[in-house]
């Protein structure tokens, strides 16, 4: 079955430290991978995507993600966390299902950055 897993419900990081939010996927064919962020009481905002090419993709707000085909992972990273990065993060993968392309979403990871 095609799926996305975000193994951590919550990640706690001290401000200034590097952060990683994990995502693994299972999909047929070449994966198109996405990260979105949801700030409190807001809709989802697109952060970055991997379609093809360089395995390290850079996105908004200083975030980056590394595509690892052998480990079927697409972890979100940032070298130095800010308190304002505290939010809910979703990983998604494009999958072909029922004759259409759809996004399959992870359950989300709550990121808490402590001052």
């Amino acid at each position: 079955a095609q799926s996305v897993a975000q193994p951590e419900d919550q990640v706690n990081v001290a401000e200034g430290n590097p952060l990683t939010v994990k995502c693994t996927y299972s999909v047929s064919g070449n994966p198109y991978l996405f990260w979105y962020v949801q700030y409190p009481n807001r809709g989802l905002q697109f952060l970055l995507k991997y379609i093809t090419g360089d395995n390290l993709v850079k996105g908004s707000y200083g975030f980056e993600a590394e595509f690892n085909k052998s480990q079927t992972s697409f972890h979100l990273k940032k070298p130095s966390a800010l308190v304002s990065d505290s939010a809910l993060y979703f990983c998604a993968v494009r999958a072909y299902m029922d004759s259409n392309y759809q996004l399959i979403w992870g359950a989300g990871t709550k990121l808490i950055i402590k001052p």
Partner: protein
Amino acid sequence: DVKVTQSSRYLVKRTGEKVFLECVQDMDHENMFWYRQDPGLGLRLIYFSYDVKMKEKGDIPEGYSVSREKKERFSLILESASTNQTSMYLCASKLRGLAGSYEQYFGPGTRLTVT
């Protein structure tokens, strides 16, 4: 900037009522989507539409219907609201296929409570 708007941020309805959630996008996107977001479950696709008057069922269409009479507007209808439909509802849009980017753009969400 892409703008996706939803008619209400918060809505409280009684069991059995018919509920309309409206979504409008201003970027001439062909594809529009309705999701519901519940803690620990991520986003689940209810319905989507690739064109005017066209609709496709997502993962959880039961108890919902949709209407797309104009390209910019996609409505979600709860025919007879039930308490298990209490949730956050998110609308999204995107350009079709290779003509544009692959990411979806989201509205702010409607938090619906059914009592």
